[in-house]
């Protein structure tokens, strides 16, 4: 810390943390029920679940609110994951995880997942209010 050094709020980190925190809340509130219902109860046939049949699933996925919901869930979640995994790597003793290239790779990865999500949501089952 020299005399010339002028401290400045790190806006980039602020943004990453904001996305991470929101992603954390969203995944905390929403993930377990998806995994439980779609990953366990549905496949085991304990309860009927929309994704067990093409018709019901397509019907739900066509709803624009569902598309928006999925985009929010996946979008924030992947910023959360990118952030945690980057810090996890640093905790494992890889200081490079704190570098700018690592930031580009991890958060860029999250952005790629978001773009892919948008593409899938737009190209899978046209929007309908039926």
């Amino acid at each position: 810390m020299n005399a010339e050094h002028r401290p400045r709020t790190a806006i980039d980190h602020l943004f990453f943390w904001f996305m991470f925190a929101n992603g954390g809340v969203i995944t905390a509130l929403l993930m377990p029920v998806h995994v439980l219902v779609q990953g366990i109860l549905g496949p085991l046939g304990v309860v009927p679940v929309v994704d067990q049949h093409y018709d019901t699933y397509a019907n739900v996925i066509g709803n624009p609110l569902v598309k928006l919901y999925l985009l929010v869930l996946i979008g924030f979640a992947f910023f959360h994951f990118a952030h945690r995994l980057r810090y996890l790597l640093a905790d494992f003793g890889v200081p490079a995880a704190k570098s700018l290239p690592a930031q580009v790779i991890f958060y860029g990865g999250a952005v790629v997942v978001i773009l892919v999500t948008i593409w899938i949501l737009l190209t899978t089952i046209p929007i309908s209010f039926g």
Partner: protein
Amino acid sequence: MPLNWWTRQRHYFLYMLREFTALPMALWLIWLLYEISGLRSGAHGYTPPRSGLFVAFSVVVLLFSLYHSYTFLKLAGVIMRIKVLDRQIPSRVIVFTMFGAWAVASAVIAFVLIWFAR
């Protein structure tokens, strides 16, 4: 700092576990995306998720996911400072509200996933 620092103490290990939850959850969401994109090949091309391997994977993910929800909502309750009428809301109340919101959100989503399957 030795690189195995997190194996030396329970608390550190639990912290690393908490951070690690991101990975299985990410994999599961990627699978979800993959399933959704499967809808594009029409009724004949879509295979509903039913394999035992997938169920086993989901069980593991569910455990991580629950651990994430528990730790994150509890910690979120600790850090939020909300004042109503100039009085600090105790963090117990905030944590309780968070867990309540979790229950409500879970119920709504479960309802949608099951109700529209008829």
